[in-house]
């Protein structure tokens, strides 16, 4: 083993420091953990569970005489101290900890206690709540530059432990790539690094990785756990919520290296900043990520209390590394966190606008939520320009244009085009607006005389999707009312609103004009401004005998429409109906017919127009059509029609209006639908909106029905430095809270964040309990290092990338991760970091790694809405309100990174659960790293991983036969294959090839898994290599960052 030349100087440091450390018993290091575990429950902060009025957490109290006259602790005199007597007594009734506690102290612990008292019983404030103090940085090792190595090295030297050698270059690059981007290096990147002999070759790689947009995606996985980001609300119906722009914000914050204090301020109080930007408002969505309910019968006050309490738990865990949870009901037993601290922290968020129950039930009225159902979003929200959507919008537009250009290029015979163009020119010269508003008739048919129940069942004969067609009422109709005639270009006044079962029909004498689209104009003042109408339209052609055949439309839109939702996704058209809130302006809507129609001489075009409000309207038709209903007769369209050339623009108009090239239209219409779902580059996102603060009381035992507790105002936690309190005149705000968190008064946020970052890169936090730096948490393994990192972070600009760079360029980080059997006695948990710690990849990166290796991962996109990978059928069945059908994403959305997976709190994707991803019901600072049969089953059989293996196999098969396995290892493990690994794999491939050659049907099935396809000259060979790649992707090395 090669030994780094940094041992000698550390020995010196170690020896210098040794004089004090061997004998002196330290309160924080030695005594507090014992007291916290065994004494404080009855003799600590919480007065309710205190026994014998004795508290040991405060020195002054511990030194006072108790009821019996005995003094718990007499400094310097252990034999006179009651505590020592009780620890050592053989009397079962007197011994401490007492029998009921089921706790005992070891002889060594008792001895420590005695020595501590003998040495004067010196207390120290809890380390995590003390102000930050700059430590002395130990001497740097020879040639060393990184202070981290000085701290780690000093401790190792003290124990006379040599650090491990540096990891191999291949492993080092794979480690850094996975840690910083969540993706492995490509073989080319590894080769480049191996070839780079410069002294700072590694640092250059680190800088490359830190600059990659993948860095933000990787770090977001950490923060989204902390922020409890999810796509659904969590309680009861677990409906969707609109919040993905917040995830984009987090990714972007890491990529642009937003200072952490700004990150904090924007999330907690972005809405309170002066003239907040859209980005800052989106960030404030953090406060809205608590679980919410829409359950009938839920009590508003109860749920507001639940939301408020959760927010305290999440904020205190995220920024203060402390567990406030217990204080909801009582003073914390082991920490100085008082019940009042819980509620004064909650009071900061009392202004966050939110409803206890997100629906307007008659027993719990929420008048502002009138009409809100299970498909509606969770207000308030902001409409925001979104980079991903904007990019996709442009991409799909370009794709549409290129589709038309391609069609143009293929257009050899222009006869049809020329004829059509001549017809259109003739039409336009007569109708320069592009619209024909012919004469016709209208009439209102009464409801057919059927039993009410039956009628109700038939009533919703609305267009429910793009291709639905008109349905004729089946029941016998009463005598038709006399139609009312109207002149060409006239407006029609509906006699009344159309009731259920009634039919308001407009017939038009359209003559020989082909009809490609239908337009309804509703002039200003048709109904009073702000009044509402619910409208549906369907079409048909009536022949001379009065027989009607339906005419389908494929897309409709209106200049003004109220949003309609399907599981919070806003519908992009009015195909399923048009909710109109009348503006103080003219309005129109256009329906694009599926196929243009022309009426025969004795036929009439008919519009069945259902509107619950009596409108004034004008009906027109046009031989023109377009991708966009609202552009059929727009000025720029009309001028395009004058262009006699066959251009991409004119070909588009031709295809849409003529409607004959169905193959092309199918593609353009699908693309149009996708394009419209980019919402012109905008997205909605939940935000914080400040409102009049709710009254916050201390709730005795957390009971929301108990209003006897005192009303509290926002106050920073009483046990932390820099206390800030509200006054009668000035109520502190969330912004004040953020400012205090970011202030130099506050020591704990920097400690919390540095400890967590350390865990990401070294496997264990310096204090192993990432979510509790309180007295039940662990004293850091290297307190001075954590202190130094925290100061460096807080006082030098909260620079996240700088701190990460510092960590990953340290020699400590770069060591081999092979654990050290020689240290099993001295350092069984590798807390001294004489080596790196191996770590299984987080759930998202297990996925990303496999798809990346396979060449399937979509890395062109960053951000955007959540996607739905393959998921076992029926998994969402026990969900209701609304019922959920999971439809796996098509196209490149299927292979997006794990962090974009749809996060259904109630039914998290099984792959994510199996690899320990949290459901994010609440703040999670530490995931567990389990190793289970479910993980094996997932990697073996989940279609995502089978598809990845097949795609990887296809990548390998294009290479010369001798290069394939080698490249497989470079892809999956980031290293060359070892000779010993080869023979057995080659044997497997040979056997599998033989098997699939004799079982071609099996081969065909295996290589078909997934939506993607691989070209296979020889299906048996592809199937056999798929098996080999399954082996590689299932190997422990592939899913572990060494």
């Amino acid at each position: 083993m090669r030994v780094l030349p940094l041992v000698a100087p550390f020995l010196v440091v170690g020896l210098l420091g040794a004089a004090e450390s061997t004998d002196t018993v330290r309160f924080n290091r030695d005594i507090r953990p014992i007291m916290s575990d065994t004494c404080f429950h009855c003799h600590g902060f919480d007065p309710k569970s205190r026994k014998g009025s004795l508290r040991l957490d405060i020195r002054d109290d511990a030194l006072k005489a108790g009821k019996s006259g005995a003094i718990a602790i007499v400094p310097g005199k252990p034999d006179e101290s009651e505590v020592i007597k009780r620890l050592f007594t053989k009397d079962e009734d007197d011994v401490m900890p007492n029998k009921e506690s089921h706790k005992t102290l070891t002889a060594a612990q008792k001895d420590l206690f005695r020595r501590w008292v003998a040495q004067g019983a010196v207390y120290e404030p809890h380390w995590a709540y003390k102000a930050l103090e700059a430590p002395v940085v130990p001497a740097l090792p020879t040639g060393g530059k990184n202070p981290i190595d000085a701290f780690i090295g000093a401790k190792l030297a003290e124990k006379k432990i040599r650090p491990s050698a540096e990891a191999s270059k291949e492993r080092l690059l794979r480690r850094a790539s996975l840690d910083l981007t969540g993706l492995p290096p490509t073989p080319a990147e590894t080769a480049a690094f191996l070839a780079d002999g410069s002294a700072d070759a590694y640092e250059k790689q680190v800088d490359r990785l830190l600059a990659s947009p993948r860095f933000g995606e990787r770090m977001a996985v950490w923060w989204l756990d902390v922020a409890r980001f999810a796509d659904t609300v969590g309680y009861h119906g677990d409906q969707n919520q609109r919040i993905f722009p917040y995830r984009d914000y987090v990714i972007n914050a890491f990529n642009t290296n937003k200072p952490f204090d700004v990150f904090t301020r924007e999330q907690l109080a972005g809405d309170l900043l002066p003239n907040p930007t859209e980005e800052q408002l989106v960030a404030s969505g953090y406060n809205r990520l608590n679980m919410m309910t829409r359950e009938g019968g839920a009590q508003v006050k109860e749920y507001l209390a639940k939301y408020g309490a959760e927010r305290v738990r999440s904020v205190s865990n995220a920024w203060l590394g402390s567990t406030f949870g217990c204080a909801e009901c009582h003073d914390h037993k082991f920490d100085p966190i008082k019940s009042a601290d819980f509620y004064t922290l909650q009071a900061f968020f009392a202004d966050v606008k939110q409803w206890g129950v997100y629906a307007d039930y008659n027993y719990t009225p929420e008048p502002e939520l009138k009409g809100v159902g299970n498909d509606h979003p969770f207000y308030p929200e902001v409409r925001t320009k979104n980079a991903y959507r904007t990019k996709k919008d442009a991409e799909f537009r370009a794709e549409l244009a290129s589709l038309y250009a391609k069609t143009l290029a293929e257009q050899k015979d222009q006869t049809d085009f020329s004829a059509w163009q001549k017809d259109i020119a003739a039409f336009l010269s007569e109708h320069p607006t592009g619209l024909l508003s012919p004469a016709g008739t209208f009439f209102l048919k009464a409801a057919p005389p059927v039993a009410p129940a039956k009628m109700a069942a038939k009533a919703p004969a609305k267009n429910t999707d793009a291709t639905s067609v008109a349905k004729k009422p089946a029941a016998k109709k009463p005598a038709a009312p006399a139609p009312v005639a109207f002149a060409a270009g006239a407006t029609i006044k509906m006699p009344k609103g159309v009731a259920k079962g009634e039919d308001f029909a407009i017939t038009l004498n359209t003559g020989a004009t082909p009809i490609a689209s239908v337009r309804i104009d509703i002039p200003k003042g048709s109904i009073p401004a702000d009044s509402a109408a619910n409208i549906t339209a369907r079409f048909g052609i009536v022949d001379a005998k009065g027989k009607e055949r339906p005419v389908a439309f494929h897309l409709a839109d209106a200049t003004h429409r109220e949003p309609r939702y399907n599981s919070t996704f806003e519908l992009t058209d009015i195909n399923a109906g048009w909710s109109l809130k009348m503006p103080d302006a003219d309005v129109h809507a256009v329906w694009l017919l599926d196929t243009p129609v022309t009426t025969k001489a004795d036929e009439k075009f008919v519009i069945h127009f259902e509107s619950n409000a009596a409108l004034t309207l004008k009906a027109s038709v046009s031989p023109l059509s377009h991708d966009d209903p609202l552009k059929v007769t727009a000025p720029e369209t009309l001028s395009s029609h004058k262009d006699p050339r066959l251009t991409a623009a004119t070909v588009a108009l031709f295809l849409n209006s003529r409607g004959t090239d169905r193959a092309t239209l199918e593609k353009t219409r699908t693309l149009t639908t996708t394009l419209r779902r980019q919402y012109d580059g905008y997205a909605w996102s939940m935000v914080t909106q400040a409102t009049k603060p709710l009254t916050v009381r201390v709730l005795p035992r957390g009971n929301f029905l108990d209003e006897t507790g005192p009303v509290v105002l926002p106050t920073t936690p009483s046990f932390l430095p820099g206390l800030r309190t509200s006054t009668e005149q000035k109520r502190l705000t969330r912004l004040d809270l953020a400012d205090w968190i970011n202030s130099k008064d506050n020591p704990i946020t920097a400690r919390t964040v540095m400890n967590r970052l350390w865990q990401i890169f070294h496997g264990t936090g310096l204090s192993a309990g990432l979510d509790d730096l309180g007295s039940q948490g662990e004293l850091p393994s290297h307190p001075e290092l954590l202190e130094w990192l925290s100061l460096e972070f807080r006082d030098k600009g909260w620079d996240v990338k700088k701190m990460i760079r510092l960590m990953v360029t340290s020699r400590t980080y770069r060591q081999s991760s092979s654990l050290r059997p020689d240290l099993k006695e001295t350092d069984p948990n590798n807390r001294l970091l004489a080596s790196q710690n191996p770590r299984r990849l987080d759930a998202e990166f297990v996925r990303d790694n496999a798809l990346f290796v396979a060449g399937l991962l979509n890395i062109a996109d960053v951000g955007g809405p959540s996607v739905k990978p393959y998921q076992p059928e029926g998994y969402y069945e026990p969900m209701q309100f609304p019922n959920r059908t999971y439809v796996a994403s098509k196209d490149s959305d299927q292979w997006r990174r794990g962090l974009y997976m749809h996060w259904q709190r109630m039914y998290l994707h099984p792959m994510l659960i199996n690899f320990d991803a949290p459901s994010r019901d609440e703040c999670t600072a530490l995931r567990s790293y389990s190793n289970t049969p479910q993980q094996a089953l997932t990697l073996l059989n989940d279609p995502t991983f089978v598809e990845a293996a097949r795609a990887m196999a296809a990548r390998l098969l294009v290479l010369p036969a001798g290069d394939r396995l080698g490249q497989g290892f470079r892809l999956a493990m980031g290293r060359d294959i070892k000779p010993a690994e080869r023979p057995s794999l080659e044997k497997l491939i040979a056997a599998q090839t033989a098997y699939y050659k004799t079982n071609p049907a099996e081969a065909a099935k295996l290589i078909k898994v997934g939506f993607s396809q691989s070209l296979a000259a020889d299906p048996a060979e592809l199937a056999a290599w798929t098996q080999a790649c399954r082996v590689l992707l299932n190997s422990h090395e592939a899913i572990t960052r060494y």
Partner: protein
Amino acid sequence: MRPYDPVAHALSINRRSFLTKSAYGLGSAAFAMLAAKSGFSDLHAAQFSKGVLQKPDLPVKAKRVIFLCMAGGPPHLELFDNKPVLKSLHGQAFPESFTKGKQIAQLQNTVLKARGGSFEFKKWGKSGMELTDIFPHIGGVADDLCVVRSLKTEQINHDTAHAFFNTGSIIKGRPSMGSWLLYGLGSETENLPGYIVLTSAGRTGQQPISSRQWSSGVLPSKYQGIQFQSKGEAVHYIGNPEGVCQSTQRQVIDEIRRLNGQLAEETVDPEIATRVAQYEMAFKMQSSVPELLDFKSESAKTLENYGIKEVGDGSFASNCLMARRLAERGVRMIQLYHRAWDLHGGLDNGMKMGAEDVDKATGALIRDLKERGMLDDTLILWGGEFGRTPMGQGTGRDHHIAGYSVFLAGGGIKAGTTYGATDELGYNAVENVVDVHDLHATMLALMGIDHHRLNVKYQGLDVRLTGVAGKVVKGIMA
């Protein structure tokens, strides 16, 4: 016991290295030899199936639990708790003295009226236990039951009430009852998950149920409940990919094991050995699930007894038979959710459907276990997350938490008895009141666990299923 501590667990990964390394020697040769042996996994399997309790705290009365969760909240006043006074008040104003200041769900801000029980009660079995007339099969096993008529819960909405009933807390991340049992006692099978959940839905009164209810929370995911699906594959990812048969799958797993063995030669990482063992266990599960799902060995008579129309149709009846098969195979916790009981309206009809869908299968399961001698060490719990109000809500009843009924049967239960009582209107539990923590404490006690001592360290606290509360209800124990 040594309670699970996530922090210590994270750290112990390294410590485990030395243990396992010493178990199979540090040399690669020894590893390879072991890896080559088919019994390799057995070396490690023990560590997965063992619980944290080295030996039981208390006498073990039951080895496994079958929890028939009647999701939605069945009405105690129709089923278990006969209230003639309430019947006499039917349609009249409900006395405010009962309801003032109490939590109310959908009846908030409405006029409260008494609703008498819809069905007759009769005396069943030798014990003469008074139960509903309309559930003859459950009535038929009355002498095996202990009906608790004085249960109280704290949460009045489905989602949180389930959370409270399963985990003893509404704070997210608390392990469910089944996870606690697996954690404390370990599993008795290596071929199947130790905690299995099945769901079914009735024809009315459905409410959603969250997979959170069988989450292991802060315990490692190996303690989570594994949901058997009624559609598609029974267990997620249990089936081989299309075009891969069991023997080719075996070859793949063998090759994975060889590669992992080679990795272990040069890298000291205990997780490698664990990984190898997990693949063996996964393969065993893959092999044993088809046999489990194959009901061919069940006689036509058995199917008829349970009222199974079609095997594996996802019905409660089919799930009950599956529960017995799982119990036979050593599964520690079997939880059946039947979503059918949220009868805010149409209660009478809902009860008739319940009689058809639930009564027969429940009775059959208890009898079947008894005939096979398994009822003695199987603890059955039948009940909902809450009961339903003595006040009417149209043609139904609202959610009710102040007093309701569940029943237990089997291992260690005082059979043929009732315990506790509600007041004359069936509103408040007033005699021998049992809360959910008490029920948990009692169930743990029957399984040989002192509820005070089954802890997990989390965020610096000792978390328990029963929180700081819970007392063992001796009165329902034999």
